[in-house]
Every structure is written in structure tokens, then in C-alpha cells.
């Protein structure tokens, strides 16, 4: 490995891991058992995993097609649209929550109709958490996947079309598998961002144990009371997500060995 790459890579690792190490060092290991024993923690953890996964699935279903359109379609205003889609990344999460309330709240622009027509109210429900997390995390997926669509070799799509594959079949059987590793990267970003999401969620969905209280919110509340418990909770969150990422991601990547 050339040192010009090795040295900065090592620095990057040290920089990213030092704070995590710090957390490990300061963690109240003796109390960890107690913290975990609280039923609320497991509840929050479960809710976090469920909501982050749901948000990722929704993001995949809606975001991948949008990424494809942004990468491939040609129409006026495309550049603007492409920039607009990245805005939820920039919006401070709390403001994102406010924006969600304005749009999908009970009195919101869209929300009032959802309520009146379908009897759906999103704020303060688990669905609301998923909506908030999706709003914040989907752009990560979109931007990553769009970049990959843009770089993918069009020759294979042409070949598939001459073999009689419809646009949809080409997309499903050729384009998506070709960008598999970026799709994976985008999903990881999206899932992780959703799992760690706090500001928009607490603003839009509130903080009800078992319904909308996710781990980051539990951590926030713990910080008010007992910062060490908050560290312990964070470590639990980290451990679970490492387990999921190591387990899932490498399995996926190996499933279809790299092209």
C-alpha cells in the first residue's frame, strides 16, 4: 500500500475511533447491566431498529427510482430538483421537524387532508417517527445511488434492451445489480442516519416510550438526568449497529461477488 494513501487512512481511522474509544473508557461498565435491565431501553432499541429499517425500505422504494430519474432523465429544472432533493441534509434537524409538522402535522398543509380523508395522523405515532427518519435519511440514499447510476456503463443496458428486456427489466436485472455496491453504501448511510436521528423525530413525533421514543431520544433524556447512563445507552446503540452492519453488509457484498 502506498504510504501516501496509508498515512492519511491511518489518521482517518485514529480520528474517527479516538472518540469512540473515549466513550468506551468513560463508560460506566458496572452500571451497564442496570441500564440495560430497564425495560424502556430494550423497547427503545427495538423501536429504533424497526423504524430505521422501515425508513430505509421506504427510502429504497421511493428514493432509488428518484435517483434513477435524476441521473438519467433530461428536463428543464433538473439541476434545481437535484439540489432541492439534498436540502433535508442541510436543514437543521429540529427545523426539519418543524417543517414536517407544517406539512404533515394535524393542521399541516397535507396533514389536514390526510386526517380528514383517511383518518391518518402522523405526529406522535410510530409512523410519524418513520416519516421523520425517512425525510432526514432518504437524501443520503438518493445522492449516493444517483452518483452510481451516473457512472454505470450504459453499454450493458443497451445490450439488455436488444435482448428484449423492457426498461423495467433492464433496471431490475442489469442496472441495479451493476450498482450493487453503491446501493449497499447508500442503504448503510440511510439506515445509520435514520438510527441516529434525533432532532426531527422528537419535534415531529414527540417522545412517548414504546411508541415514539427511539434510542437517541432515550439518550437525550438520559443526558438530562445522568450523562453516564447516556454514554452507556449510546454504546448499546453502537454495539447493535456494528453487529447489524458487520453481519448484514458483508453477507450482501459477498452474495454477488464483486464484478
Amino acid at each position, binding site marked *: 500500500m502506498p504510504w501516501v494513501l496509508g498515512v492519511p487512512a491511518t489518521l482517518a481511522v485514529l480520528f474517527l475511533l479516538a472518540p469512540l474509544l473515549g466513550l468506551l473508557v468513560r463508560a460506566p461498565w458496572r452500571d451497564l447491566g442496570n441500564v440495560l435491565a430497564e425495560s424502556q431501553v430494550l423497547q427503545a432499541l427495538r423501536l429504533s431498529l424497526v423504524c430505521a429499517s422501515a425508513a430505509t425500505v421506504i427510502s429504497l422504494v421511493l428514493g432509488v427510482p428518484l435517483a434513477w430519474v435524476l441521473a438519467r432523465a433530461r428536463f428543464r429544472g433538473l439541476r434545481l430538483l437535484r439540489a432541492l432533493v439534498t436540502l433535508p441534509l442541510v436543514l437543521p434537524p429540529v427545523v426539519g421537524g418543524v417543517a414536517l409538522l407544517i406539512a404533515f402535522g394535524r393542521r399541516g398543509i397535507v396533514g389536514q387532508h390526510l386526517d380528514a380523508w383517511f383518518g391518518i395522523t402522523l405526529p406522535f405515532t410510530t409512523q410519524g417517527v418513520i416519516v421523520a427518519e425517512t425525510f432526514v435519511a432518504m437524501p443520503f440514499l438518493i445522492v449516493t445511488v444517483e452518483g452510481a447510476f451516473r457512472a454505470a456503463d450504459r453499454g450493458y443496458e443497451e445490450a439488455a434492451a436488444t435482448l428484449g428486456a423492457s426498461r423495467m427489466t433492464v433496471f431490475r436485472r442489469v442496472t441495479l445489480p451493476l450498482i450493487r455496491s453503491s446501493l449497499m453504501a447508500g442503504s448503510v448511510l440511510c439506515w445509520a442516519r435514520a438510527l441516529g436521528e434525533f432532532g426531527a423525530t422528537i419535534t415531529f413525533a414527540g417522545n412517548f416510550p414504546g411508541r415514539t421514543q427511539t434510542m437517541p431520544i432515550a439518550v437525550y433524556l438520559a443526558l438530562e438526568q*445522568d450523562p453516564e447512563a447516556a454514554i452507556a445507552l449510546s454504546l448499546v446503540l453502537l454495539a447493535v449497529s456494528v453487529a447489524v452492519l458487520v453481519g448484514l453488509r458483508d453477507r450482501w457484498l459477498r452474495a454477488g461477488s464483486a464484478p
Partner: protein
Amino acid sequence: GGSSAPTPMGGSSSATSKGTVNVFAAASLQEAFATLGKQFEAAHPGTRIVFNFGPSSGLAQQITQGSPADVFASASTKNMDQVVTAGDSAQPTPFVKNVMEIAVPSANPAGVTSLNDLTRKNVKVALCQPQVPCGAAAAALFQNAGLAVQPVTQEVDVKSVLSKVTLGEVDAGVVYVTDVRAAGDKVKGIEIPTDVNASTTYPIATLTKAPNKATAQAFTDYVLSVDGGKVLTAAGFQKP
């Protein structure tokens, strides 16, 4: 709006006290309110108190955006005023106040013993931003004491000030008494003389559009009651 039939303290439940009450409360009230909620539920079988703890500003937003809240307990009159302005609450009542204290790391490396020490050049001080309640209170008490303190940072909330102190990033911070108490032995509290000390007031209100107004009012009354006051005082809060 206005209060309906006053609920008897303790004792048997009234006919109107049942169902679920959504209480939106400032995060700093977490521990005390959790206790109050349990006590209230015990006293009024058939009722359920559901808390939504968060930053007062965020809670105020949620309420003005139409969330189904019954009771709002804010850590600042300003956020309560936002709710009143929006027509969601009529009569907020102050129920506790929180006074300030100097917090220093337990080792107290800068040897801070009094308010005056905060003006020393080599003492790093963290305060809250003047716009937030704890910052306003700190500004007020420094004015009362006639001191000019130059902080290294103006935190957005009191917890941030406290964590800077806990981790030794600053030598002193001005926080609420309740925070010092909650932080246990990781920080040392240095009391501020009552004559210069400032406080922030926590108002509580039953909301105009409360879905379960009667029980909500019962809970509000319980918080304002003597029994409720005991719990709050135990957590470090003072009477308004």
C-alpha cells in the same frame, strides 16, 4: 377555558378523572414528573398519564402545530407565551422556580469559591446563551452582583453547560440547582447568595383543546397541590 371542578387532593377519584392525559413537559422536569404521574395514577385508578418530555421550545411547536396535548409544563414563560399567543392555552400558572448555582468540576481545579472568582482571567466559564432561560437568569444575577463575566462559550441549554463542567472543559458554569443535584458527585455546587441570585419560572397550563380536559385539569391541580410541591422540592425546585 378555565378550571373546572377542583379535584380533591388524594382520596377517591372523581367521576371525571379517567382516561389518558398527555402531558408535555420540559425535559428538566423528567424525574419529578415521572413520580408525580405515578402518584396521580395511583390516586385516580383508570387514569393514565403519558409524558412527552422534550425541549420546551420543541414542545411549544408541537402544541401550536396541533398535537393532542392536554397539559403543558414549560421550563420558560417564553415558550408558554407562544402557546398562549396561538390560542392553545388561556391561564398558565407558575408552579416552580429554579434558582442558579455555580457548578465546578469536583476537583475544582481553578479553586472557584465565589461568584467573584468567575471574573478571574484564568477561569474558563460557560454560561447559557442570553436568549435561553438559564442564560437570562445568569445575566440577571451578574447584573445584580455588579460583575462582568466573560464566558468562553454561550451554550444553548443548561445541559451543555453542565457537561462542559463535568468533563473539565471549563472551570465553572452557572446552572440550575436541580442540575447540580442531578449530576451527583461529578460536580460541586457553589451556592449563590440569595440577594443576587436569579431564577427562572416554570409555568403549567391545561390546554384549551385538551381532548381529556377534566382529567387534565385534575393533573394540573395535583402538580400545584401540596403533595405535588413536595415531590418537586425534593428534586431541588423552589416554590414560585
